[in-house]
């Protein structure tokens, strides 16, 4: 068996608030294989988003180990870390907040191509058009400002930015939660197509088990910063063992109608 793409062990992050220390993430371990989708689910405050930010080195963990592509990801810094970030991308929940309010679609997609030296200046407009078409948008959107396009289009632009550097893993932090139901289905289909064609692995963070069931291979359910249970996504959702897993399944009533 080949080594996993991402392996996280003993990850811990504590915050001090008013003299008390709260563990937002407490001794969490998981791994992701290439081309696989691992879902992190749990109620608000269970540490899902903190894990996303820890994996992306946006915050520093207090303890634990992150191996990405067989490399100690926590030991990287400076230019090396910035270069490695090309392989590990993220899509945020609120597609409007995730972009500089002054940016245009073209600039948002130009940045990763420029920073990682993927395309020369003269080549970039063509690459940007290709990226927009790849996520099902018209290349005519390129000169538009980010705030001028719809929420669904914006999330497609966010996905285009994430795949611009050909990453092996994309962290999707509630990436479809802010979208309305019809757009959500389209974005999920796009993510599945991208995964099939480019063998991208996803760390899919969501509180919606209906969506998790549709996209994830394996599922980790978190509660108060610790892992409550984990396993094959369908198995866990169909027969949750932990109290919090049962509560989450009950809270997703549409599962009854979309079941197998």
């Amino acid at each position, binding site marked *: 068996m080949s080594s996993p793409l991402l392996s996280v062990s003993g990850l811990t992050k504590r915050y001090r608030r008013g003299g008390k220390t709260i563990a937002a993430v407490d001794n969490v371990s998981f791994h992701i294989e290439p081309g696989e989708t691992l879902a992190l689910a749990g109620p608000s405050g269970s540490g899902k988003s903190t894990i996303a930010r820890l994996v992306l080195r*946006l915050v520093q963990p207090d303890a634990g180990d992150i191996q990405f592509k067989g490399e100690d990801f926590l030991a990287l810094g400076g230019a090396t870390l910035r270069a490695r970030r090309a392989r590990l991308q993220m899509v945020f929940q609120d597609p409007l907040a*995730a972009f500089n309010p002054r940016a245009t679609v073209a600039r948002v997609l130009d940045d990763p191509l420029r920073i*990682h030296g993927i395309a020369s200046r003269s080549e970039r407009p063509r690459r940007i058009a290709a990226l927009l078409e790849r996520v099902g948008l018209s290349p005519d959107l390129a000169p538009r400002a980010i705030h001028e396009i719809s929420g669904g289009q914006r999330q497609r632009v966010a996905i285009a930015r994430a795949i611009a550097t050909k990453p092996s893993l994309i962290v999707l932090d509630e990436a479809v939660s802010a979208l309305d139901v019809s757009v959500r289905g389209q974005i999920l289909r796009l993510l599945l197509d991208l995964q099939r064609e480019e063998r991208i692995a996803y760390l899919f963070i969501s509180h919606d088990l209906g969506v998790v069931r549709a996209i994830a291979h394996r599922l980790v359910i978190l509660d108060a910063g610790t892992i409550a249970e984990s396993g094959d996504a369908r198995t866990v959702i169909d027969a949750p063992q932990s109290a919090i897993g049962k509560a989450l399944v009950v809270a997703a009533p549409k599962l009854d109608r979309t079941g197998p």
Partner: protein
Amino acid sequence: MSPLRRFLRMPEALAGTAILAVLFAMALAAPLIFPGDPQAIAGPALLPPFQDWSLPLGTDRLGRDVLAELFHGARTSLAVGLAAAAAALAVGAIVGTLAGFAGGLVDDVLMRITDAFQTVPSFLLALAFVSAVGPSLGVVVVAIALGAWTGPARVARAEVLSIRERDFVAGARVIGMHPLEIAFREILPNALPPVLALSSVIVAAAILTEAALSFLGLGDPNRVTWGGMIAEGRAVLRTAPFLSIIPGVALVLTVLGVYLAGEGVIETTAVRRSLS
């Protein structure tokens, strides 16, 4: 309603703009209407205004044309005021952005330096600097900027502190952007509007500081300044008060114009920001 039309509906903003327009016209037209040295003798000494229509505002103690001096003085006032304010805003925005974005030790060091500059009265600082380095236009600009950059630095830092926690900054880090590029290309432009709102106050203060320095004889000696004209007229204040009053009124109108026009711009952009 477009920002321009909203601006045009504010009488005080219009008045300020009109004053500034006249002033800029004076500054630009000075070498055309009054070619040659404004400090050259043009007629009899201490000619009162409205006596000789070739010298409408009269002459000073040395027989220099007051109107020509007024026009050429507008050049100095505006140039120094705008240059000093631009320098102060640029330095303040850069220092504030670095402090707010870097945090930790960098933030502490930069903000203590800012404190140090803020505790010294800015006019004394300018005075000391010009006295030490010697009066010239560039030195006066630096001297004034030295006391004016702390306000913009604090505002920029506060703004950057809130912006750097936003998702789009995290997004810029995720795509591997260099921290300096994040600070100056992603954060600074978004932190700028409240900093620029200070500009009218800073320009007005810079013009007054320049006048005060010139009044004390620390302006560029090769240039006519309104402050210098007032100082010149002080010796004959009883017999020829117009020599001090005319540049004094010009100064008051300039500061008023800068302030009113600046407030108008802030008001219109503020409304536009809250609407969007």
